[in-house]
């Protein structure tokens, strides 16, 4: 390196060092360390950590009491329910707000509110909403009152009001509804940004050619929002695989194991059971592999070159 190049290098590295030190220590270092830990029997209270090779991985994958497959299944269930419901709701919301004659700023602000409220707070509110005699069932009761006479005529009966969070079949959908409620507004603002970038002339031209609202939506709006849809779905998938706080607050993974997801399982292994650091790290790596494969495959399918704009 010439003197000048060396000087330039020193300056550049000097500027980067404070940030790089933090990232290297807590992200890059952590990920390497994580792999190291996953190869050991690691109890935080015992100084010796015997090397066990891939034993933790085989434990996680094949032990008969392993929570891994249940948690993975629940996580997939959560993601599968969450992603389409958020995308559809957020997109419809953005269409409604886009066409609003006035007050767009107000609606944006209202939509945004849930995403700046701590998830802990939102989870607590919804826990209360989901109580047996809470507002959700109150609303459902009103619907039943209207529907049941008709249903009775057809020889059907309306199902009993559920106890949402303590019933194994309703707990996860209930968590999904809450998460969708929180995320929809945020993503609708992103869709709104996408919508406002579509030149008005496109719609005017389509209108002149006799295209109705539905045709404009199908042939202009949706294709031009393709990148936004891809971006939103990828973010939702990545975030969905890591869902934790709402599960931790609302159900602690229960009832039974019906809402145990990957992150809550890792958390419990690492911090609420003895000697679980190694197993938890192995689980975390397997989770990473799943997310990576999933997102990678998805990106290959949609084959988009412009995602992050």
């Amino acid at each position, binding site marked *: 390196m010439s003197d000048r190049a060396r000087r330039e290098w020193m300056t550049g*590295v000097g500027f980067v060092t404070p940030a790089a030190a933090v*990232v290297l220590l807590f992200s890059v270092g952590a990920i390497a360390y994580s792999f190291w830990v996953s190869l050991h029997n690691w109890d935080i209270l015992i100084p010796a950590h015997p090397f066990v090779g891939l034993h933790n991985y085989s434990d996680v994958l094949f032990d008969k009491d392993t929570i891994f497959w249940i948690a993975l299944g629940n996580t997939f269930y959560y993601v599968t329910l969450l992603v389409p419901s958020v995308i559809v709701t957020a997109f419809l919301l953005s269409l409604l707000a886009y066409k609003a004659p006035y007050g767009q700023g107000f609606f944006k602000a209202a939509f*945004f509110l849930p995403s*700046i409220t701590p998830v802990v707070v939102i989870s607590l509110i919804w826990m209360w909403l989901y109580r047996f005699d809470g507002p959700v069932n109150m609303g459902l009761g009103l619907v039943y009152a209207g529907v049941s006479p008709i249903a009775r005529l057809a020889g059907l009966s309306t199902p009993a009001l559920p106890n949402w969070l303590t019933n194994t079949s309703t707990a996860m959908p209930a968590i999904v509804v809450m998460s969708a409620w929180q995320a929809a507004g945020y993503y609708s603002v992103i869709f709104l940004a996408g919508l406002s970038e579509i030149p008005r002339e496109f719609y005017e031209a389509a209108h002149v050619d006799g295209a109705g609202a539905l045709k404009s939506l199908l042939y202009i709006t949706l294709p031009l929002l393709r990148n936004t849809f891809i971006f939103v779905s990828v973010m939702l998938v*990545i975030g969905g695989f890591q869902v934790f706080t709402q599960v931790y*607050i609302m159900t602690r993974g229960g009832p039974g194991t019906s809402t145990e997801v990957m992150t809550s399982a890792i958390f419990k292994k690492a911090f609420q059971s003895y000697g679980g650091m190694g197993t938890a790290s192995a689980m*975390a790596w397997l989770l990473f592999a799943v997310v990576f494969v999933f997102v990678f495959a998805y990106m290959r399918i949609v084959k988009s070159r412009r995602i992050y704009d």
Partner: protein
Amino acid sequence: MKRAGKLIGFAALIAVTFAMVLPYLWMAASAFKTNTEFTSRPNDLVVRHPTLTNFAGAVDRGTGRMGRYLFNSLVYAATVTVFQLIFDSLAAFAFARLRWKGRDVAFTLLLSTMMLPGAVILVPTYLIAVNLGLADTILGVVGPSLAGVFGIFLLRQFFLNIPADLEDSARIDGCGAFGIYWRIIMPLAKPALITLGLFVFISEWNSFVWPLVILSDWDKYPVTVGVSLFRDESSIAWPKIFAASVMGSAPLIALFAVAQKHIVGGITLSGMKAG
């Protein structure tokens, strides 16, 4: 016909927006109810006998400690924001405006760490922090967030769009790299810095898992962990929980009310990750 359609659309929008804010109304109403009123009419949105008892209970040093939690959250969020603005902008400057060997490789490497799910590095980050003696310390809470790859990425994008002319003339006048960073780039980047600062503040205020894991002394808990403790009490006192929830989320709602333009503008500018 067309008018009717528009009207229906607008009515639907108002209805949905009402549904979005409804849970907040319940939170606020319950926070002001007396225990008797809450027990007899828990689902009513109208408060007949408003009271501040629940807030007093939430702040009480024996039963609530919300004052302490709020103070801690403020300290953590402010610290992280200040450090990220400095560290991220320094790095972004080197990636956007300086030429040095290995720059692009370093940037790509840094960017790739954004792909790591937080859940994957939770356990090792915890072990590293413990090994460094940071368990149950303030530095332990804020340490991993003192710099952020996302912030570096965002600021770099902004710095790249600043024209080079100003920088060139400053260089001719004998300004060094740091002078250019501090006197030219930073003042011009104010909008991006404000947006990033707000996002960092909000996400640090809302962070829950990391402080839950790294702290064990309630005296250092941020508001998120603090509020979650109310849920663990043997009998859940909902009005008090809601009073605490109002206090925990009000600062951000106030901040949002003041800086809405920057926050909403910010996500459209970058398509950013959710908090």
